[in-house]
């Protein structure tokens, strides 16, 4: 609708301008002819001379039209329509081109989202620039687990670090309530959350005695797990949950995120 009236207006304006230009040039040639006649030329010679001063009349008209500003827009419209026609004419080529673009854009988006998380977004903890991961490598075997005793030595004897905490990722099975579920967990040493600078949403984190042998097995659960599994029940603290058949006391809830 809009395009149509817009187009009609353009065409009307264009027609008016065209008409004016024609009339203007005609007047010009008539005056020139008249002057030539007054200078003593025959009518035919006079008119021919007048036309000659113009060089190529059509070219002059076209050059004048090019100065009208809406023409580039008109050209754009023509180009778009031409492009669409050609695409419809060669659906195979069009499909290939669109597929190429889609894959290219998709791949870029995927790579960017990875790069964005890994390289540009810092870790969601206070002072992320002061966090490092320590690991142990054996030249032939790659990464291996650091032993608990080695960790104790590192923590006590490496003064370059403010604090050190250990973690190990694993999976456990939650049983005893509703449906059993396989959970992703991390076994961490007592100072882990303190080192990251986190504050509990609810309850508390581990204290130093709780990673000693003989301590009560205890867990800290994530905010989302607390919401989805326990309906954000504030009385969850102190209750026991069964992981891999062992009972653990819930000490606290992590903040969201």
């Amino acid at each position: 609708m809009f395009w149509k009236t817009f187009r009609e207006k353009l065409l009307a304006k264009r027609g008016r301008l065209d008409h004016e230009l024609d009339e203007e040039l005609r007047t010009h040639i008539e005056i020139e002819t008249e002057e030539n006649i007054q200078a003593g030329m025959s009518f035919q010679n006079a008119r021919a001379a007048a036309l000659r001063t113009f060089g190529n009349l059509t070219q002059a008209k076209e050059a004048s039209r090019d100065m009208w500003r809406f023409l580039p827009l008109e050209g754009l419209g023509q180009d778009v329509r031409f492009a669409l026609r050609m695409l419809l004419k060669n659906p195979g080529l069009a499909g290939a081109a669109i597929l190429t673009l889609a894959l290219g854009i998709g791949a870029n988006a995927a790579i960017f989202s990875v790069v964005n998380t890994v390289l540009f977004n810092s870790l969601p903890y206070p002072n992320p620039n002061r966090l490092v991961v320590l690991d142990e490598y054996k030249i032939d075997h790659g990464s291996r687990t650091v032993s608990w005793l080695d960790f104790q030595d590192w923590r006590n004897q490496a003064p370059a670090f403010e604090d050190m905490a250990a973690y190990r990722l694993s999976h456990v099975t939650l049983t005893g309530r509703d449906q059993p579920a396989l959970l992703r967990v991390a076994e961490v040493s007592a100072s882990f959350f303190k080192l990251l600078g986190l504050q509990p949403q609810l309850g508390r984190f581990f204290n130093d005695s709780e990673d000693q042998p003989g301590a009560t097995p205890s867990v800290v659960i994530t905010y989302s797990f607390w919401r989805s599994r326990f309906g954000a029940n504030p009385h969850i603290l102190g209750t026991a949950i069964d992981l891999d058949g062992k009972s653990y006391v819930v000490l606290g809830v992590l903040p969201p995120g």
Partner: protein
Amino acid sequence: MSSPQSHSDRLELLQGTLDLLILRTLRWGPAHGHGIATSIQRTSEDVLRIDHGSLYPALQRLLQQGWITAEWGVSTTNRRARFYQLTEAGRKQLAAESSKWERFSHAIGRILNAPQEG
């Protein structure tokens, strides 16, 4: 064309100078296309040859820039013609372009007339 100047004595206009000449000519008051061309040729004592074909694109360009306005009127020979008139912006443009051109031609003149070195 009234003068019998030989073709080789006439100069082609430098690129971009036509706009300046049109603006200068319109300083005298409104004029139609043919009047502008004749005026430039006469004032330059027939040295400058205006290609009438390039005159109208130049006028359209100046209209688009808002340096001149156009209005239909009646010529001295009682013909309907389009008269062009300088706007305030056109006056400013003319002043700026004139001084630019003067500095340019001065500089060229100085180089061409520089005493030989050594």
